[in-house]
Structure formats: C-alpha cells, structure tokens
C-alpha cells in the first residue's frame, strides 16, 4: 500500500527542483580531468591542420607557392583558395548576409587573415609546412579608423562588392559602407531637442575587444567516403545551425552530417560563428579521406575568430531643467572589420541596439546605425551579452551620468526620476520593444540602502575636500548602473538566423522505471545545463533531478535548436523544457486517473505524485505511472511516456539590475582599486541560485576586464597589437574585485516558469558601473567623459591632462 512515511519536505528536497542550490553534475567529470573537449578527440589516422596567415592588413596576393611546404616530411596536403574553388568554397556566406573569404582569394583584408591550410601527420609537421609556404604580397593602403572609412578618397576594401549599391540591409552609401539602420521617430525627436532646456551630446566609444574563452575554437572533421557522411566535432554554441550551414555550403545532404559539440571550454559568443578553420578541416577531410583536426592557437583566437564591440556612439539626451528626460538621439558608427560577419538575427544588422532607451521613460527617441568596413578582423559577436545590448547599455548609462553632472543632480536621483514605473509594464518603448515586466524603483532603492549610498556620497565629498587641500592623492568614484537587458531571441515574428526561426526545443523520455533523459537544442559552455534543466523538469513532473539525464550538443539525438548565446537558453529552451514536461504531466494525469478510478479533474499534483483531492493517501507517484505507461497503459492509450516541445517565445525577456561600484584612484599612478562592487540582479524566477551567483561573478569579472584594460588594438598599419595573453588583459585572482550579489524577483509574465535569463546581465551592467565610477571620480576636476578602457596608464594620462598629477 501507499507508504506515507517521507514528509512533504523530504519529498520536495529529494527532487532538487527549481530554487534549490543543486550541486552540478558536470563537476564530477570536470574535477577529475574526465571532460571530453574537442582537442581530446583522437581518431585513427587523424591529420592536423594549421593556417598560413597574412602578415599584412591589406595587400594583393600575387603568388602562393606551396611546393616547399608540400615536401616537408609528414605534410599531406596544402589547401589554398584555388583548391577551395574546385568545390565552390573559396568564399562562404556570413550570418549577416555578407560573404567572406575562407582562404585569401586575390587579396587579404586584415592581418592574420587565413591564406592557406597545411595538413600533416603531426602538429609539428603542420607547423613546419606553414613556415615554408611562400606568399608574395603587394601592400595596399590600410583603413583602421572607422571614421575614415567613408572618406571620399578612402581605398576600396571590398572589390568583390564593386558596383553593388544594395547590401543585405538596404542601400550602401559608399564603397566601404555596409548598411544604414534607423529606428524611431526622427522629426518628433528633433523637435524634443529643439524644445529642450538641457541637452548633452557626447561621443561614447565602446572599444574593440574579444570574448577569449579559455579553450580556443577548434574542430575535428571526419568524412566517410563510403557512406558519404561527415561527422564534425567542434566548439559550437549552436551545433544545429552549424549543421545547416555546412549542408548549405558543402551541398552534402543534411541527414548525412553529424555535428557534435562535446564539452566546450567557455564560449561567450566566440563560438557562435562559422570560421575558415572549420571549412578547411571539412574540405581537407574530404580531400584526404582522413579525419582532420584544427585547433587555433591563442594568437589566432584573439586576432581572427570574432571580435566584439567597436561601436562609436554619439549620444544626445534632451531633458527639462528639473531632470525629466524628453528625448534620446543616437548615431552609432559600427566598425565591422573586413567582412560583415556579425552574429545577429537576420533582420537586426545592429542587433538589439534599440534597447538603448534603457530603463527610462523616453517619450521619443531616434537611433541611426552606420556599419562600415575596415582592415580589421570580422566578427562583431555578442560577447557575453545579447546582440549589441552591452553597447547600448553603456551609451545610455554613461549618458545619464553625464546628464546628471550637467544638471548638478545626483545620478541615482536622476534615474529614479525617469524610470519606467512598475504600473507601466508591459511597456512600449519609443524604439519599438515591449518590456515584459519590471520593478526598477524597488531594485535601485534596495541597492542604495545596501551600500549606504548617502554615506558613500558624504565620504566622497569629504575626500574631495581633502584632495583639494592636498591631504590625499586619492580620488573616489561611485559608479551606478541600472540596466535593462533584452534577451531570449526570439519570437519568430522578428527573429531568425539564415531564415531559421529562433525557437528552441526539448524532448523528454521517461523510462519504464521512472528515470528520464532530456535532450535540448541548446549547448552549455559552462552554464551547467545538465544540472539546471533537470531541475526544471523535476519541479514540473516530480521526478528527482538526480534521475534525469540531460544531453545536448549531438545533432543526431537532440531536437533542432538554435543554441546558446544572447542569454536565450533559459528564456527559450527553458520554456520548451517546461512545456515538454507539461505534455508528459498531462498524459501522466490521465494514467493516474485511470489507475485511481477517478476523473482527471479530481486529481491534484503534489510534488512527485497525483493524489485524489482531499484524500492524500490515495495517490500514484510518477514512478508508478511511468511503469504503467510501458506495462499496461489504459485501454486505447498509446504506450510510452515522452514528449517534445518546440517553443516559439511570444516576446523577449527583460532582465534588469542595479549595480554600484566604489572605486579609489591614485592620481599619481592611475591605479584604480575597486573597493566594493554590489550587484543586484532581477532575472525573474531563479532556477539555481548557486549557479546564478556563479554566472554573476563571472560576468562581472569580464566586465571588469573590458572596462579596466582589455582591448584589441591596431596600429595605423593594421598590425594587431597584443593578440596574446601577454598584452590582452585577463584579470587574475589578484586584481579581480570581491563581488557582492543580491536580487529581487520580478517574474516574466509570458514565460512558462517566469524565468528571464541571467548569464549576460553582469557583463552588460558591469561595464557602465565601472566606467561610471572612474568618470565620477574625475568629474569634480572638470572631466565629462573618459573613454574606456580605463587602465592605469590611461587614467594617469587623464590626471595629467587635468593637471592634478604630482
């Protein structure tokens, strides 16, 4: 008979469902060195590929001589654009509607561009081969400054586009122009500016940087000539999309392509795109009939496979004299490098940068974005943020601080005055979004109390006086950021990639003994999906998370999904998981009703079982039900207990947060010390607080890196400066500040479990918080806006310019 011994609490605890700090299942293998990353794959007769790269940023390729390289012992083949032309693959389409050279075809357009691919029996032999490929270049004039890109006499970068006045996103105004994208009401916005009491107008640049996960991009391609099948293991954040892209460009039928993303060592946007190395490995495997591995080194990673940001945002805000914002006008110059290979949904050439009105109730706004070509690496990926959202958040959050300074108003007060109010949600923004839910006042007020904001301002005032009296050489800054993200791309009505609607998916199979496997269209690159997805299912259908295996990344077994980036996993796949669970639950309820001989409506679900209303001792657990589903289903019912769901979200989700950074800067050295960093996040329903906190720590650390030093810089010859960990700033445990985390919970009204996504919020909110702290510190000395990154040398230069260095 039914055993009533475990208490409800014990049953609940056993589930380890949503809200619980479940320890991660992934860690068991990772802590023992038993992960299976791409570079760990070793196949019989496998070859190794290595790239010959351009030393010039812009040059004509006069001749490529591979004969010496081919004679190196161990070198099996050298592939050039000429080889690729035989299979029509010298160029490939990009996700942004442009085309991109796989290997240099006639010219090179950025330094370290892929020129030839050497395939050999060992890593070392491949490297020897690379050394001996001879390339003759004829240098061409270089453009690295996007502001010079559209000068009348600017050199033509993309000769392949000669005469094309239309691009994928409309009219091109110049040979180096990619697109112009506009949104909002220009006349009304201009009018608001004409009437404004107060205006700010500032060029706010967000410099070029790189996601740089600890594992670089890599793949193993294995073509089976007999079966005509290709298996491609790779560091892919979106394995299904890669399968479709490979099929489209190689003309191999999609069912004969098996794409597998095994364990991936971090992604942060770097592993969304399709890169030359992947195409070359696939072609090399087809040509040689052997598996080919390609692993980029760190220099290649930092200088070729994607970059992020490089947005130059002229930001204007109009306001009344008492600090009510009345209009926002922004022009963005977007440097996309040599090819437009941004990983944005098709209709959004500038991503969701129209989230730029932020958390504020702007009655009118206008945004115009011009994308241009330069002699820099292609990319423009969403580095730990939704598409171009961090750029937008930076511009508006810096802009609000600049406005506060101009008004002589406290930046917190200015924000509170202009926030969208709780009762205004769902809120239609002036630039076209419908914000789902929010409670901004509560969040910011909680943050202000938590850090004793008034006390900090008083301390700052005293310190400034002391500085002026010459008693200290340290200045103090308080950086506030209140960001609103837009994540969870996205509804099919406005989001697709290569025509694929941006849904996501989940398939759940309950086994006869009551355990389960769930397969999902996303791909964890460290977020812990194997742990959290099981928690959603556990809460939804009452099977313990420990009895649910989650599998992702294998396109043969997982349902089609658009992958993991733009914080879309929880908003989209998380919803698919809940919906698939609910289908199973509905069938389970029918079985339980039949077993208990009651009507379905007479049952209630309680943690792990259906029980008869008012008679809790009459119940069937999910384990009982699973067995019956396979053993003796009710008459007329199909056996089995499984479901699949493809979820097309009705809207995006809009996580938000209040971050406060307290910083002390030594004006004589430019060294900035983060004294305190407080981060309050509202990501709606919280699935696993431990993992959320970990995500916030990680994202804040990346924000710290980006704002305080990390940069991909070019000299005027187009040489990429510092594409190594020697020069590219990745903070160690010593520099990284201590993070304080906090939260409020405002569920998303349209998401089945109310979750909004969190992985990227800390990067989006963190960068403005750091930069605002730096700017706030210097503001009393007459400074308005200091460009990032804020490394010690640059801050010292600022201090020197302001005449306050010792």
């Amino acid at each position, binding site marked *: 008979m039914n055993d009533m011994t475990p208490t409800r609490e014990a049953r609940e605890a056993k589930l380890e469902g949503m809200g619980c700090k479940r*320890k*991660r299942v*992934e*860690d*068991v*293998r*990772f*802590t*023992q*060195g*038993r*992960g299976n*990353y791409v*570079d*760990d794959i*070793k196949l019989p007769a496998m070859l190794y590929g290595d790239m010959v790269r351009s030393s010039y940023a812009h040059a004509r390729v006069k001749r490529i001589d591979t004969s010496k390289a081919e004679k190196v012992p161990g070198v099996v083949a050298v592939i050039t654009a000429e080889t690729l032309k035989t299979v029509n693959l010298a160029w490939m389409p990009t996700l942004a509607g442009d085309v991109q050279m796989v290997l240099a075809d006639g010219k090179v357009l950025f330094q370290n561009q892929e020129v030839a691919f050497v395939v050999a029996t060992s*890593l*070392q032999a491949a490297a020897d081969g690379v050394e001996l490929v001879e390339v003759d270049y004829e240098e061409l004039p270089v453009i690295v400054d996007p502001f010079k890109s559209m000068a009348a006499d600017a050199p033509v970068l993309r000769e392949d586009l000669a005469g094309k006045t239309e691009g994928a996103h409309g009219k091109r105004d110049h040979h180096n122009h990619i697109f112009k994208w506009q949104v909002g009401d220009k006349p009304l916005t201009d009018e608001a500016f004409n009437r404004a009491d107060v205006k700010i107008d500032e060029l706010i640049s967000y410099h070029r940087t790189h996601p*740089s*996960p*600890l*594992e*670089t991009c890599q793949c193993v391609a294995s073509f089976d000539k007999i079966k005509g099948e290709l298996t491609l293991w790779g560091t892919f954040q979106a394995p299904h999309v890669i399968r479709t892209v490979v099929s489209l460009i190689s003309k191999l039928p999609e069912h004969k392509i098996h794409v597998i993303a095994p*364990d*991936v*060592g*971090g992604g*942060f946007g770097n592993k969304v795109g399709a890169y030359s190395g992947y195409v070359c490995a696939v072609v090399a495997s087809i040509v040689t009939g052997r598996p080919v591995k390609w692993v980029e*080194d*760190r220099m290649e990673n930092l200088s070729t496979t994607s970059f992020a940001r490089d947005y130059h945002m002229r930001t204007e805000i109009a306001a009344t004299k008492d600090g009510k914002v009345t209009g926002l006008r922004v022009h963005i110059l977007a440097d996309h490098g040599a090819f437009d290979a941004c990983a944005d949904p098709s209709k959004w050439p500038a991503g969701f940068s129209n989230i730029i009105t932020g958390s504020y109730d702007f009655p009118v706004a206008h945004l115009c974005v011009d994308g241009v070509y330069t002699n820099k690496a292609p990319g423009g990926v969403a580095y730990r943020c939704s598409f171009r959202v961090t750029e937008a958040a930076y511009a508006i959050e810096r802009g609000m601080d600049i406005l506060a300074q101009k008004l002589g108003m406290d930046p917190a007060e200015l924000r509170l005055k202009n926030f969208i109010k709780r009762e205004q949600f769902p809120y239609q923004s002036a630039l076209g979004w419908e914000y789902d839910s929010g409670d901004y006042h509560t969040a910011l007020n909680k943050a202000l109390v938590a850090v004793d904001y008034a006390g900090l301002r008083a301390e700052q005032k005293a310190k400034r006086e002391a500085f002026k009296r010459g008693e200290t050489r340290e200045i103090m800054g308080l950086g506030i950021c209140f960001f609103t993200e837009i994540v969870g791309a996205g509804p099919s009505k406005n989001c697709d990639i290569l025509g694929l609607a941006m849904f996501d998916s989940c398939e759940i199979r309950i086994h006869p003994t009551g355990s389960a496997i769930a397969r999902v269209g996303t791909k964890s*690159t*460290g*977020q*812990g999906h194997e742990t959290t997805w099981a928690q959603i299912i556990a809460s939804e259908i009452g099977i313990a998370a420990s009895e649910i295996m989650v599998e992702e990344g294998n396109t043969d077994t997982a349902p089609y999904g658009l992958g993991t980036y733009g914080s879309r996993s929880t908003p989209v796949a998380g919803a698919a998981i809940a919906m698939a669970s609910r289908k199973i639950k509905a069938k389970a309820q029918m079985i339980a009703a039949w077993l208990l001989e009651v009507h379905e409506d007479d049952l209630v679900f309680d943690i792990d079982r259906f029980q008869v209303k008012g008679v809790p001792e009459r119940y069937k657990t999910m384990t009982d039900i699973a067995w019956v589903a396979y053993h003796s289903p009710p008459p007329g019912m199909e056996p089995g207990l499984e479901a699949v769901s493809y979820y097309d979200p009705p809207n995006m989700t809009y996580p938000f947060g209040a971050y406060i950074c307290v910083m002390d800067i030594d004006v004589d050295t430019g060294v900035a010390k983060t004294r305190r960093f407080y981060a309050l996040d509202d990501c709606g329903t919280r699935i696993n607080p*431990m*993992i959320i*906190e*970990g*995500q916030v*720590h*990680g*994202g*804040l*650390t*990346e924000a710290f890196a980006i704002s305080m030093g990390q940069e991909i810089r070019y000299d005027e010859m187009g040489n990429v400066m510092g594409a*190594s*960990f*020697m020069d590219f700033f*990745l903070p*160690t*445990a*010593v520099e*990284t500040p*201590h*993070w*304080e985390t906090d939260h409020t919970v405002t569920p998303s009204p349209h998401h089945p479990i109310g979750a909004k996504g969190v992985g990227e919020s800390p990067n989006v909110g963190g960068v403005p918080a750091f930069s605002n702290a730096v700017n706030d510190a210097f503001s009393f000395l007459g400074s308005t806006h200091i460009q990032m990154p804020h490394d010690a040398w640059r801050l010292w230069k600022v201090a020197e310019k302001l005449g306050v260095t010792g």
Partner: protein
Amino acid sequence: MAKINVTMTVNGEEVSGLAEPRTLLVHFIRETLNLTGTHIGCETSHCGACTIDLDGVSVKSCTRFAVQAEGSHIRTIEGIAHADGTLHQLQESFRQMHGLQCGYCTPGMILRAWRLLQENPRPSEDEIRHGISGNLCRCTGYQNIVKSIQHAAAALNGETFAEAAQ
C-alpha cells in the same frame, strides 16, 4: 626530426615514449600518454590550464620540453583522486563551492591548489589569490575558486569551513 626516448614517472607509474626535442611536455602528456585532463589555453605560459606537478613544484607544462622531464616525477589531474577511487578533498570542495563552470581551467587550478596547500596548509584569502595568480579562469571570477580552496584547506585540517561574511 629525430625522436628521443623519454622516461618519467607519471601518477606513480613509470612511463616512456618518443618525443622530438622540440615537443612540449604538455603535448607529450596529452598526445603520447593520452592524459587529456591537462589542458591547453595559450601555449605561452600565461594561462595555467596546463599546470601539473613536477618534482614537487607546480609547473606549466607548456613551458617545458618533454625531454627536460626525463627522470622526473609528475602528477596530473588524473592522479589526484585517492587510490581507492574516492575523490581528493579539493575535487570535492570545488564541486561543493561551485568553483568551476566550463571546467577548462579546473585541472590546472586543482593541481596548483594541491601544491599550494602543501606549501601553506592554512592560507589566507590573499595568499590563495596570489598563489593561484598564474592560473586564469574566464568563467568564475575566482571568488568561488578561492572559497573552494578555503573549504578544502579547512576539511584537510579537520576544521569546519566558516564562510566569510559578505
């Protein structure tokens, strides 16, 4: 290029293999010994993903040639668990304290922490932060790695771990 026979003791077992003079130790460990738990993040001695223990010190194995390790005693992540298969306290603590996300830096971090706790069984937070500063992590922001090491240190010393108040 001619290959040389190299012999070393790895995780308590004597092993040998052929290596070119220029073969990096990390490649020898991964490709010849098939111990893929030791990772590569840069090959330029910056990231620490390749950290192993060599003759009693933490070493970035991309910084050595395989032939330089002739006769040495090496420990990799595969040799950290106890002989009976139970996990080392550090492995347990990293899981308990959420000291890893993608797991790519983890073997190197654990190997470094393993040596650190032998050099200094009761490290302060500051000593831990400096002690692991040769190891980069892109995911965790270090805070929970530090906590994992504190947690392990406490357990290894037979003490209970008191989380520092925020």
